[in-house]
């Protein structure tokens, strides 16, 4: 029996194996999300997050370690300190695996409450996510495009890439204001 079919068989028949499997995925990806959000925040040091979450720094460190097992209350406190929302959802195993396989800490980011126009300004209607990519070219404003709606913006240059989230009416100039100086000389292109 292959390793995979053996695992599937045990997942189907054994409750504890299922618990362990689920816990490993959630226990790795949730700490990784917390770490990504902290490092992508304006105050990326653990003591700052600890202060905002009214927790000891050692607890933040523990919450960022794979296998952490925080309560919903603790997760809510982390989300509140990071100024993001939290969604806990039961899904199919296949969906959980797809979530794990598509997750990249370096690209994970979430719109913070202060920038969450769709929440702060409900009359603004969110549209499906659009992914934008940048490539380094001379700054040519005539080529800039205007995007309106709920957007997830990715930018990449050389060996560096990350994602910043947004749910705002985006003008290119605004966008440039939101990204580091080295990225200003870039053209926005939309990849289908």
């Amino acid at each position, binding site marked *: 029996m292959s390793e995979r079919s053996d695992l599937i068989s045990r997942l189907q028949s054994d409750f504890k194996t299922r618990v*362990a499997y689920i*816990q490993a995925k959630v226990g*790795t990806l949730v700490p990784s999300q917390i770490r990504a959000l902290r490092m992508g925040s304006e105050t990326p040091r653990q003591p700052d997050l600890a202060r905002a979450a009214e927790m000891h720094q050692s607890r933040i460190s523990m919450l960022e370690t*794979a*296998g952490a097992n925080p309560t919903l209350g603790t997760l809510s406190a982390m989300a509140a300190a990071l100024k993001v929302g939290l969604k806990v959802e039961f899904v199919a195993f296949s969906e959980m*695996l797809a979530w794990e396989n*598509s997750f990249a*800490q*370096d690209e994970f980011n979430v719109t913070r409450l202060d920038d969450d126009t769709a929440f702060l300004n409900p009359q603004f209607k969110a549209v499906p996510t659009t992914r934008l990519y940048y490539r380094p070219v001379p700054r040519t404003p005539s080529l800039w495009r205007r995007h309106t709606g709920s957007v997830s913006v990715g930018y990449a240059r050389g060996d560096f890439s990350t994602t910043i989230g947004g749910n705002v009416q985006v003008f290119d100039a605004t966008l440039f204001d939101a990204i580091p100086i080295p990225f200003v000389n870039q053209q926005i292109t939309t990849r289908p």
Partner: protein
Amino acid sequence: MNIAVYWTFHDYVEGGQNPIGEWYTNDLSDAGRFGFDAALKNAARTKSELGWSGFKYLQGEPSKEKIWQLDFRADGRQYRLLGVFRPGRQAVLLIGCYHKGKVYTPPNAFDSAIKRAKAIREKKTGVTTSERKIRLDF
């Protein structure tokens, strides 16, 4: 969406024996194995090792060999993988252990890690590595 994979993980192998593979198969529970796999899968896609959850370079004697640790919890235990880097974003796992406070199982984990790191650095005869496949199908 294609996720960039930056790192490969390799098991330390000496005289044909793979102590990491044996630890994984014989000593870890299901929870430990799942935690181990998930930690490596996530780390492989995180470009800077300093961004890995539970990562830090060791101080003291192991620092001479630039040994690092990668922690994960499973089964109510704090597991620790000790490893070294090689060029080309290769992470070599030297030993796996768990600890409660300062009590490690196996107790000689750090000494073994130092010995194995040296053996790799000095290209000791019979010492090699075996790439650990990161699976996407479970």
